């Protein structure tokens, strides 16, 4: 029990989180104190935890037991332990939590005196704790308990601002969806237990691998349904764009940055870790789901003008990208191609980390915008780059990273995914080249659309003229919030420039879950300080590229100075074609910006426009006109609404045909049952 001892540090961080939760309740009278103290606890906890898991991974990993509790109720046994896979995801969680908690210190200040900050922070800490527990769950029941706790705590965080009824609705949709998913997961876990009698999932002694194929497939379907709902893959995504805007931004950062990744963890843990991949169609399914999610996610994101809903749809897209990586990996494994599998799964894991970083950052940025302009609608923003320069820079970094543009980390993971696809194709042994190349195309398309979408987000909200008073009055956010975002931005750049830092860690994971050797395949001695990756003849070194670009830019500056001398420049208004001076109403709106794409894909968006004219004789003397354009979510309209309506009608019918209120009817039920049962007794 010393600080050199990983488990000890780890336990310490858990205890710190608990302390944070308790402190939040204890100090709930004093909002400021409660907030600062519990967030400090979270910061400390995540720092310690990060240290311990990094050390664990670099020491070569293995399984470490943290905590065990065996209740004397049968089957109820809590076992917390972690191996490399868990510690990698925990690392993501800790990094994210570290930044977000720093951010929260400043961000939550706008709750002071308005809301129960103590309760909020209590939920915040327990949410982090529950996510940790999901990663640490050593056996089936612990996993399920942690999973449900995570859902419940996040539900309460989503509905925390419960004056707005849409938040409550969003929360309801969220928890119902996630609980239905959980039911499938539970069924799968039950089947696993019933068939093997084994309940350890971390360090299970390989019993799950002997489950008959049919049941493995059944479990796989259940897992895809259950975890897919949590991950928000289409068509189970509808809760996601509702829940994320409802939650306050630091929570959405955690939810989108990490919570939906627990699904990735679950899939890896149960299918790869417990069963091992044997069926080809598993990989195909995941791949196809990934393609759909990637393309449709970004496509829907383009149509959104509420920053947080836009980001939520981008989470769907990125989950899709991760799924593409996983799918390729699973396919490769089922074909016994460990080289490709290693790269693909590494790419998926890497993208998980990256998405946590930049999406977390983006949500924090959205939070800052909301904090200083208290609006989420980018049509109300504009010109913020002058009011909040640092936030703008960070947001720019995140936008570049999520659009997979060099030299940020998003590009590296997508590059790895492309490489795995390419390597798999060049093996070319299997008949599904088309799906695979389509996944490459989907990646490219999604990347390009994402770039457009973030040009829209950044351009409309930060550039140009402010479109509303609140945007005019915006001020830079407090330093804690800035530093929270700054850390993430710096990490985005760092992991882009030196990806091998992360890949070293990931190698431990891939070698553990599927016995895949990674570093040998990607390492490259010729390119300096673990900056570059080279697979076969394909090389990539963001650091070098950045250097080149910088050199060229400097060269350009010098060249221009030499040829053109010291340039004179004059400030003047934007060209207004000689009419009245440009004002904010004349600017291109986000709606207009995305219109071409809306028109091109009208089949998908079902755009509608409504012009309502008010006035006593509207057609001749209109007082007021309302013009509304929008798009329809086909999934909600044609799947969910239908199902829900059907269910409710069915329920009402049953209710009023069974519970008619007529006592004679009730008595006749009894008589009929008697007769039926007497028949049963006579016949059987």
């Amino acid at each position, binding site marked *: 029990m010393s600080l050199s001892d990983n488990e000890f540090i780890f336990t310490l961080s858990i205890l710190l989180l608990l302390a944070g939760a308790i402190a939040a309740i204890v100090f709930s009278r004093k909002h400021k104190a409660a907030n600062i103290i519990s967030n400090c606890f979270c910061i400390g906890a995540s720092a310690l935890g990060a240290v311990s898991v990094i050390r664990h991974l670099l020491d070569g990993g293995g399984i470490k037991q943290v905590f065990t509790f065996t209740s004397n109720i049968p089957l109820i046994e809590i076992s917390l332990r972690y191996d490399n896979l868990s510690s990698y995801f925990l690392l993501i969680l800790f990094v994210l939590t570290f930044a977000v908690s720093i951010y929260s210190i400043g961000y939550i200040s706008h709750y002071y005196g308005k809301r129960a900050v103590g309760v909020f922070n209590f939920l915040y800490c327990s949410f982090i704790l529950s996510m940790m527990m999901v990663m640490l769950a050593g056996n089936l029941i612990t996993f399920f308990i942690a999973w449900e706790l995570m859902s419940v705590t996040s539900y309460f965080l989503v509905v925390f601002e419960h004056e707005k009824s849409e938040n409550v609705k969003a929360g309801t949709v969220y928890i119902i969806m996630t609980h239905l998913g959980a039911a499938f997961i539970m069924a799968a876990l039950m089947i696993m237990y019933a068939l093997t009698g084994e309940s350890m999932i971390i360090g299970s002694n390989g019993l799950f691998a002997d489950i008959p194929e049919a049941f493995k497939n059944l479990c796989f379907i259940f897992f895809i349904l259950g975890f897919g709902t949590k991950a928000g893959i289409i068509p189970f995504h509808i809760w996601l764009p509702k829940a994320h805007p409802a939650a306050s931004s630091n929570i959405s950062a955690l939810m989108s940055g990490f919570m939906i990744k627990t699904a990735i963890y679950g899939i890896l843990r149960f299918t790869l870790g417990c069963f091992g991949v044997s069926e080809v169609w598993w990989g195909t399914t995941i791949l196809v789901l990934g393609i759909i999610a990637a393309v449709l996610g970004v496509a829907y994101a383009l149509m959104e003008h509420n920053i947080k809903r836009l980001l939520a749809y981008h989470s769907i897209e990125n989950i899709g990208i991760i799924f593409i990586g996983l799918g390729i990996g699973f396919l490769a494994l089922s074909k016994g191609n460990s080289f490709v599998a290693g790269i693909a799964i590494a790419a998926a894991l890497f993208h998980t980390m990256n998405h946590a970083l930049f999406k977390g950052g983006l949500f924090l940025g959205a939070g800052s915008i909301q904090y200083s302009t208290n609006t989420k609608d980018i049509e109300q923003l504009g010109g913020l780059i002058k009011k909040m320069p640092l936030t703008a820079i960070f947001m720019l970094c995140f936008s570049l990273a999520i659009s997979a543009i060099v030299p940020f980390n998003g590009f590296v993971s997508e590059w790895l995914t492309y490489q795995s696809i390419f390597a798999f194709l060049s093996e070319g042994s299997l008949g599904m080249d088309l799906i695979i190349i389509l996944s490459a195309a989907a990646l490219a398309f999604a990347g390009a659309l994402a770039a457009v979408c973030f040009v829209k987000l950044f351009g409309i909200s930060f550039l140009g003229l402010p479109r509303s008073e609140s945007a005019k009055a915006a001020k830079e956010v407090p330093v804690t919030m800035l530093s929270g975002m700054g850390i993430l931005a710096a990490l985005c750049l760092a992991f882009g420039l030196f990806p091998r830092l992360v890949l070293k860690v990931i190698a431990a994971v891939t070698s553990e879950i599927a016995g895949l050797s990674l570093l040998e395949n990607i390492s490259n001695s010729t390119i300096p300080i673990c900056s570059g990756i080279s697979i076969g003849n394909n090389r990539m070194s963001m650091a070098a590229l950045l250097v080149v670009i910088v050199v060229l830019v400097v060269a350009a500056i010098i060249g221009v100075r030499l040829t053109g001398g010291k340039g004179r420049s004059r400030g003047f208004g934007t060209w207004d074609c000689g009419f009245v001076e440009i004002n904010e109403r004349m600017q291109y709106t986000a709606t207009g910006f995305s219109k071409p794409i809306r028109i091109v894909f009208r089949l998908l968006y079902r755009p509608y426009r409504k012009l309502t004219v008010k006035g006593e004789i509207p057609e001749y003397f209109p007082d007021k006109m309302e013009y509304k354009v929008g798009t329809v979510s086909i999934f909600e309209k044609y799947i969910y609404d239908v199902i829900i309506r059907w269910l409710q009608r069915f329920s009402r019918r049953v*209710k*009023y045909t069974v*519970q*008619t*209120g*007529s*006592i*004679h009817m009730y*008595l*006749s039920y*009894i*008589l009929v049952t*008697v*007769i039926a049962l*007497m*028949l049963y*007794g*006579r016949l059987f």
Partner: protein
Amino acid sequence: MTTYMDIISIFILITSFALVASKKITSYIKAFRIQSALLAMALAVMGYFHFVESGRIDTLVLCALIIALKVVYFPKLLNKTYDRVEHKVEKDFFMNIPMLILLCSGIVIFVYFIISGIGSFGNEDVTMQVVNMVSVVLIGVFFMITRKKAIGQIVGFLVVENGIFGAVMFGAEGMPLIVDIGIFIDLITGILIMGLMVFKINDLFDSINTNKLRRLKG
């Protein structure tokens, strides 16, 4: 002896048919009274034999109870209640009489089909009586279903009780006395409570048509 019992049980069954067939409340209260009387008669005979053979008087006690309650008191109570609450005459049943009769006979046939399937009761010759009594029970329930008035349901419940009691009496000899006593206590309190509630229903709904009690649905 057995034949005698059979005959009485058949009569009891017939009275329940009469019950179903009767239109007016007073008339089916009368039918119920006759049925109880038949039950009491059977008990009296049985009790007499018991007394002669083994000097047991519990059967006779039961017989007395039956006469006191089911032949005298309950019909009286019901009639009084009926006089107090019923102002207007309205159609009391959902289906017309022949239909009801047909269904009841169907029930009897069904029960016979079922019970005859059962191998043996301790001794063979009670089967007939058990069949009749079980059909009386089911007919009682059926009667409750078909009558709208609260009183009709009380009577139906009483008929069900009669059937069960008959089943005990014919089929299951030597049921402990305490059980029978308990049954009677429950019966009395039950009927009293129901009678009380009939008044309340009449007050609040100004009718004892239980078909109007349909606010609690869903």
